């Protein structure tokens, strides 16, 4: 009823294989995009930008990156935090070394550098699988954090060991530093997240994506049908690293503004992004967004309900927040192990048939 495909005919192959084959879906997608680009920037304020939207968009990029690795290629990584740190430190070095270059160039460059580093740390995946690989990526996590802390070159020899993001602009609009307007930081993240989603979507449905999925489903079988496992795994690490690097760069330069590697890019970050990917749904771009939204909004929401609305002491609220988040994660996994994306698919299926259930 609400969600029809009657009269929606595809007359060519490209039409049939597009991302949103159903007209209604397509329009909804355009409406969401238009809302995000044309409405939100005009109504957003500091709180909404810094507490909700900017972290949500940045985490969505990181989740897309990790989802490519875990959801599409089946390689579990717990090094996301450190890989984000690579992006952050790369962009910091670039920003301070070439102050006149636009952020639109620095951020992708930082992504490329991260892609290189992540590919190197992806090499063990050729021999190690499953949880052994997950724990092996922790080696990257701890080593990189130690390295960024130890080598003063990375933080420009500052006495404090912290990196602070200087003020940089894009076409004259300040996007980093304290004087950036809320809408400007929001917009730059939105642009990158949109690009990331489009690129990821098109990569994963192309031949590269099929190779990844073949490796994920059964690597030996994939090898037999002619997929080169080394190329497939390493490209997955590289592409994933690129997105995670971009996310790390934005996280430091646009969102935090100052960072210390151990505190901002510790192992908790790796787990957080992994949560997003799994809660959202493995192997789904939409799931990455849903997971990021869930994990960013839930604590803010719970805090506002417990403290702001019910007026409970903050420590009680924080403990309950732990309990509720942990409980919700378990409940979600029990009810729908394939994540929010699967719930969304089921809902769509129901809506298509409504009001006739059969």
């Amino acid at each position, binding site marked *: 009823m609400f969600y029809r495909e009657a009269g929606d005919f595809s007359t060519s192959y490209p039409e049939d294989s597009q991302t949103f084959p159903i007209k209604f879906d397509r329009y909804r997608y355009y409406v969401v995009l238009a809302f995000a680009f044309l409405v939100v920037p005009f109504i957003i304020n500091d709180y909404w930008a810094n507490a909700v939207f900017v972290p949500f968009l940045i985490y969505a990029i990181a989740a897309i990156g990790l989802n490519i690795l*875990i959801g599409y290629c089946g390689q579990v990584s717990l090094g996301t935090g450190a890989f984000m740190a690579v992006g952050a430190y790369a962009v910091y070095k670039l920003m301070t070394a070439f102050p006149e270059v636009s952020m639109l160039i620095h951020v992708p460059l930082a992504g490329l550098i991260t892609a290189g580093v992540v590919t190197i740390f992806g090499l*063990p995946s050729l021999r*190690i699988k499953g*949880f*052994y690989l997950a*724990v092996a990526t922790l080696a990257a*996590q701890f080593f990189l954090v130690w390295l960024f802390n130890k080598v003063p070159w990375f933080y420009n020899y500052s006495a404090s060991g912290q990196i602070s993001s200087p003020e940089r602009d894009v076409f004259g609009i300040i996007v980093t530093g304290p004087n950036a307007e809320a809408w400007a930081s929001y917009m730059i993240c939105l642009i990158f997240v949109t690009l990331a989603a489009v690129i990821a979507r098109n990569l994963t449905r192309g031949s590269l994506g099929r190779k990844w999925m073949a490796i994920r489903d059964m690597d030996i079988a994939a090898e037999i049908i002619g997929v080169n496992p080394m190329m497939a795994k390493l490209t997955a690490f590289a592409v994933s690293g690129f997105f995670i690097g971009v996310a790390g760069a934005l996280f430091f330069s646009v969102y935090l503004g100052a960072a210390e590697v151990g505190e901002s890019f510790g192992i908790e970050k790796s787990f957080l992004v992994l949560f997003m990917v799994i809660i959202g749904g493995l192997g789904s771009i939409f799931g990455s967004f849903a997971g990021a939204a869930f994990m960013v909004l839930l604590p803010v929401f719970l805090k506002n309900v417990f403290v702001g609305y019910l007026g409970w002491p903050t420590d*009680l609220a924080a403990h309950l927040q732990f309990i509720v988040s*942990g409980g919700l994660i378990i409940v979600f996994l029990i009810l729908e192990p394939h994540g929010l994306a699967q719930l969304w698919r089921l809902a769509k299926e129901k809506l298509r048939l409504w009001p006739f259930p059969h």
Partner: protein
Amino acid sequence: MPEQLLFAMEVTLNGLMAGVLYALVALGFVLIFKASGIFNYAQGVMALFAALTLVGIMDGQVPFAHIINAIFGTDLHHFGWHVPALVAIILTVGVMVVFAWLVQRYIFRHLVNQEPIILFMATIGLAYFLEGVGDLMWGSEIKKLDVGLPQGINDWIDVTTFEAMGYGFFIDNLDISATIVAIILVAALICFSQYTKQGRALRAVADDHQAALSVGISLNFIWVLVWSIAGFVALVAGIMWGAKSGVQFSLSLIALKALPVLMLGGFTSIPGAIVGGLIIGVGEKLFEFLIGPMVGGATENWFAYVLALLFLVFRPQGLFGEKIIERV
């Protein structure tokens, strides 16, 4: 003997001792993974929770005092009694058994046959949950844990080695007790799994769930059993680590110390956990001693992982892990 060699020997011995402490944490992981294929990230938090419960029972703390006071406006803190350590340990084991049953009944029974990564995530959810409950139940201040274990330098070793070699070795009494406890624990586990009916059932389940089920072994019972044992191991680890630092939130981070041990020893091997722990302990201490000063120190955290990674490149299933057989 040259001084450096003596120092290296002392460092190696202490590395072995530290390795035992790592192995204690890793043991809990192995037990659960072997029996149910769950990579239990919550093991560290279980150690924290067990230690908190132990201290809480010993000091007669009122559980959930904070929330009760907040809701009813009362001023409860302590029951005013002190429970002897041994009784408190037994009571805590009881709590951990109940916990195991709850986990099995309300979480993992619903997740049978899910992919390993989903089970892993569920344990992370469990870890969050338990962190919140632990804090809410017993408060978040640092508590002193004293079950009567000796701590500090062992004078006998100090004096003997000084007389023999001219340099007194430092060995912590707590580490010695930890080693003894670990040996007893492992011996008991081995006896249990070799000579008792439940132990044999446990090994059968570890080998093949469905075959075990078909000869009439109750999977539910075995899983509750194995989570209880893991809870007990967590309590022992919690006591040993908690004696050093007091019982506090950071105790849950000891799980991170156990992961390289697991990688190295294999997720499915109890001897692997022990040997892996010893190798990691000695390896990281010696590296810190020999190479650490050249690169600025504080290398232990990452070196343990790198060491394990190097091992894995040559033996992808870990030192004692079951050989991975892949079929299409």
